Structure formats: structure tokens, C-alpha cells
């Protein structure tokens, strides 16, 4: 005689961790990993032909209050029906009401975002990844070096340093772009320049007729910068080719490699060290990075 036997179904939603408040900063927590925070675009600012700055406000009060990020972390922005893109948060960490993200129109999802206006609802997952260790940098001089779109991930550390001005020694912001019309956040340079002990220099490769500043590559700006290499940290963001030249130059100036930080870019589909798309050797750019010190990057084959 055959007896029947049916196994007890297991429902993962019954696990208590699944019902705790969703917090992507708690890496070990079992959570509905695909769940997004619904957010509204509250403001859109045109930066250049290609880039726009979006203000995103998480709609649910509890979710918004719980959401926190550190400078250098990124979020996945979901446009339902189109897809998800990883974008570094570029607003100040002290701003609790909304986050800002700078988006270049370059693919499917970002093109849709560029068409979206105020009031449109998108999803946010995150924050993900490592951050610039600004706590550790306190009491030192800081070199903030950006190329092109690299100013966006550098903006959160700039806010941190300027808002906590007394905690840092000299601050140098160096920024290079192809041409003057590609400069991001140009309306903010003056406000940064006026801060005591903040030095901001901008260089372009191809000047237009109105450009009065220096012309050339970003490394040339370093010629006029004098820092005490034992008292300085550097943060470098930009295209991969820039890392190599700038970091080698900083190393020649005597700054140790573990005091230079870079933010790497890779293709990402999850943000959680699972999809492998951002993998460099054994390292996941999404969870071990995107912020790495230069020594780690030097040791990673194919990293830059």
C-alpha cells in the first residue's frame, strides 16, 4: 500500500528578518532585496547638455527618515518598465529630506530619466558600497581631484569637508574637463572658493573664446599645489586613464598610496555582490568598492 507524504512548504516571508524595516546598510540582514523605496522627483536642474541633477524625495515618512548614506556610496535608481542604474549620491549627507543624483544621458534608463519631470515617481534601492573615509581624514589637508563627470561623486565629500571646515587643514579642489561648457555645478564654484582655506582650480583641454583659466590636463594643476605629503589625503574621481596619471603624480609628491582614494566605475545589475558584472578579479566593485585606496587598485589586475 502506498502512503502519500507531502513536504511542509517553506515561506521565506515568515522569517522575522524579512519583516524588519528595510535597511540596505545592514548587509547581513535577510531582506526583500528587490524592494525599492518609492521616491518622487521634486526638482530637476539642467547642468550641461548631457547632465541633469535630480532631487529625489522618498515618499514614505518612515523609510525616508531611516535612509542614510555616506559620501561615495551609490544607489540603484529604478524606472519601472525600463530598468535600474547605479548612480552615486552627490548631495550632502547632512541633508535628510531628499538626495541629489547627477545623471548623464547615455543609455536607455538615463534617457527616460532625462525626459522625466517634477512629480514623476521612481524607485531607489540602496545605499550600496563603500564610502570615502572622511572621519579618518580629519586633521589633515585634503586634495579633491576630479575629471569630467568625476565631480559628481566628489561633491558629497566636498560638502562634508566644507560643512566641517574646522576639522580639516588646507582643502584643494582641482577639476578638469574637456571644454568649459562641460563643467558641472559651475554655479557652485564661487561659493566654495569663498570658504576660508579652500583653493579651487579648474583647467580645460579645449578652451572657448571666453575661457580665461588655464588650459591643459589635470596633472598640470598639481604643479602649483604644495602640500605636506605626510599630512595629506587625496580623493580622485574621473575616467580610468586619469587615475593612473594623477595617482602616480601624487605618489611622486610623496603621498602614500593608502591615503589616496579612487571611485571605480563598472557595469552593475544588483549592487549586492551577486551578479558578478562589476567583478574585478576577486573584488566586487559594488560591495568592496566603489571607493578603493590606490594600493588596492594597483594590486587588482585590470582595475584601471
Amino acid at each position, binding site marked *: 500500500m*502506498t*502512503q502519500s*507524504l507531502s513536504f511542509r512548504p517553506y515561506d521565506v516571508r515568515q522569517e522575522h528578518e524579512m519583516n524588519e524595516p528595510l535597511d540596505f546598510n545592514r548587509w547581513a540582514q*535577510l531582506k526583500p532585496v528587490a524592494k525599492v523605496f518609492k521616491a518622487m522627483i521634486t526638482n530637476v536642474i539642467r547642468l550641461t547638455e548631457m547632465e541633469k541633477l535630480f532631487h529625489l524625495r522618498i515618499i514614505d515618512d518612515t523609510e525616508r527618515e531611516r535612509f542614510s548614506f555616506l559620501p561615495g556610496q551609490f544607489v540603484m535608481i529604478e524606472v519601472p*518598465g525600463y530598468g535600474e542604474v547605479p548612480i552615486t549620491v552627490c548631495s550632502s549627507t547632512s541633508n535628510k529630506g531628499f538626495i541629489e543624483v547627477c545623471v548623464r544621458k547615455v543609455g536607455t534608463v538615463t534617457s527616460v530619466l532625462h525626459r522625466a519631470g517634477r512629480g514623476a515617481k521612481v524607485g531607489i534601492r540602496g545605499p550600496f558600497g563603500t564610502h570615502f573615509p572622511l572621519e579618518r581624514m580629519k586633521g589633515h589637508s585634503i586634495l579633491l581631484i576630479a575629471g569630467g563627470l568625476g565631480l559628481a561623486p566628489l561633491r558629497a565629500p566636498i560638502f562634508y569637508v566644507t560643512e566641517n571646515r574646522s576639522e580639516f587643514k588646507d582643502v584643494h579642489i582641482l577639476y578638469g574637463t574637456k571644454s568649459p561648457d562641460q563643467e558641472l555645478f559651475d554655479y557652485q564654484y564661487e561659493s566654495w572658493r569663498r570658504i576660508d582655506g579652500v583653493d579651487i582650480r579648474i583647467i580645460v583641454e579645449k578652451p572657448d573664446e571666453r575661457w580665461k583659466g588655464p588650459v591643459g590636463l589635470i596633472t598640470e594643476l598639481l604643479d602649483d599645489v604644495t602640500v605636506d605629503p605626510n599630512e595629506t589625503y587625496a580623493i580622485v574621481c574621473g575616467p580610468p586613464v586619469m587615475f593612473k596619471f594623477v595617482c602616480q603624480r601624487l605618489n611622486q609628491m610623496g603621498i602614500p598610496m593608502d591615503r589616496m582614494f579612487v571611485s571605480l566605475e563598472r*557595469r552593475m545589475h544588483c549592487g549586492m555582490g551577486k*551578479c558578478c558584472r562589476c567583478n574585478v578579479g576577486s573584488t566586487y566593485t559594488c560591495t568592496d568598492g566603489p571607493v578603493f585606496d590606490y594600493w588596492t587598485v594597483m594590486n587588482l589586475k*585590470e582595475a584601471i
Partner: protein
Amino acid sequence: MLFKILPKEEFRALVEMILEANEVIAPKAIATNARGERIHQFLPIRSFEEMDLEYKSTEYSAKTYFLPYRENLCTFEFEGEDWQQSIQYYIQPRAIIGLRAHDINALLKLDKVFIRDRFPSPYYISRRKNTFIVGLDHIPEEDEFSRSMGTHIVTHGFDLFLTDLSDRYFVAINSDRAFSLLQKVKTRDVADADTHAYLEVRRRIRDGFKTHIEVHSLPNVLDLEFTSKVWTKWGEKCLNCGSCAAVCPTCYCYGVTEEVTMDFKKATKVKQLYSCNLVDFARVAGGHDFRSDKEARLKYRYYHQYRGFLEDYGEPKCVGCNRCGRVCLAGIKPAAVIKDLYEESV
């Protein structure tokens, strides 16, 4: 671990009992190849006869039941300017019968990634915990090298594990649900003669391995040979088809896409397994490709298998089943590639 002896006719009664009320997946002969050998796959079965436990290997691994090739992550329902997100998880219990030791070891490696690591996956956990696993020992095929990878023996990660002693099975019991299940059929305690017979089979399995790869210092050799011509030699052959990753029991990388229904009322977010050998694997928005040539992509696959995964999880990702070596249209076999690397470094 508890051990019992299960007569074969009782095993049949056990399987039929499970079949009455649950989905059962087992090796099933689906076709014959050019040499007249049966081709097997892990597929749902409806009767005991459909199952073929004499199988040598399956073309695909049983990975698809834990990491489906396509899986819905969530659904967005549009309502005017607004949308609502809903998520569903797998909750249907089922059994997989006849998994090899290396395939169960492969699941243990995936457990490390999807259960015990940062960001545990509720999708994977649902499928894993709803699956009752019955393993089965086998004398290795000539091209398998799981002994080199240390994956020819498995001590956990299953419910029951069977070793064929001709008229009976030597059964390892590894869960309470397996223990209570066995009480519904006739088993007996292990006698000395059974233990001797079991250990004899284990010896035959150990000595049955004909292919070996050198794993000692392999991570080191991979680093030393990063710019070796070996990668050009094998990379040139690669057709970037991704078959190796498709059949691999541990390859888990994926891509996510979104699909909108014809009436524009819903969108589903679909996770689709990918392969690091496919051309756009590491291409980013704007067109820059971090691994634009196939040599770099093939090399990356080997680095992840034998070095990167080891750094992250303390063991290589490969289990030595050689499914990738058999399926490769260009004849790229891991044992041959690794042998080449060692020869290059001496």
C-alpha cells in the same frame, strides 16, 4: 550522521510515496547521442520508471532549480502616473533525486554566496529550503576531476545520500524530515558487512578518477601567468557562446532586464543568468568595455573559478564535473588549459 540500510524495493516505495504528493525531479533519459549513448537531464518525473539512476552525467546541472535561467524578481503595476511593486517567492516543496556528490558540493558553494554572504537572497533560500535532496554516489567518468577539487565526497547539504551496494542502498541521513520519511518504509541498521561493502565502493570511487589537475599553488600560477600566451591560444578558440556558464553547476552571474506587457499595465523585472564570456558582460554605459577581447573574458572566467572565488569564500568555485569541457563547441577543457599554464610557468 546517522546511517541505515535501505533495500532497493523499499527505496522504490519511498520514491512513489514522495511522488504521490510532491514534484519530483530526477535524471531522465531524453535522447541518444551519435555514439548511441543515452543523454540525461534533471527533469520532473511522474513515475519511478521515468527515473534513470544508472545515468553517467547530465548535460545541464541541477542549478536551474535553484537559480532559474529566468526568474521574476518583482512586478510593477502601473496606475496612471503611479505604480505599485509586488514580489513573490517560491513556496512549492519538491524533491530532487540522484544528485552527485559534486553537484551537492556545488550547491554548498552557492549557499556560501546566496545564504551566508552579504545580502542573502530570499529567492535562493526559498528554493533551497523547499527542496528535499537525495544524493547518489557514482563511479566517476574519465574526464571528471572532482577528486582534485575535493568535491567527490559530500558530508552535508543533502537530506539523504545513497551509495549503491547492488541489492541495497547505504543511506546517510542528514535532516529530521529525511529521518521521519525513512520511518515510513522498512530499513535496517548497518551491519559490519555493509560498512565493508560501503568502504569498498568509496575506494573504487577514489581510484576511479583518471583526470587530475594540479590545484596546489594554482592561484599563484594564475597571477604569475596573467600575461601568458596560453590565454591567447585558448582565447582565440573561444566562440563567446556562454555554454560553459550555462551548464556549470556553480556559475551564478546574471543580468537584469525589464519587460512591459502588451497592454502597458505591468512590467516585470527579470533576472536572467549570464556568462562572463558573452561580449557585453563588462561593457558600461557610454560604450567603454572593461574586457573587450575574448581572451580577457576567457581568462576572467578561469580567474574567478580558481582564484577570485577562493579569495572570497576560501575554496575554488569549480567542482570538477567537466560539464563545461564536454559542452564547449571549441573544445576548451579546463584540465587542458590548467596543464598548459603550469607548463608555461616551469
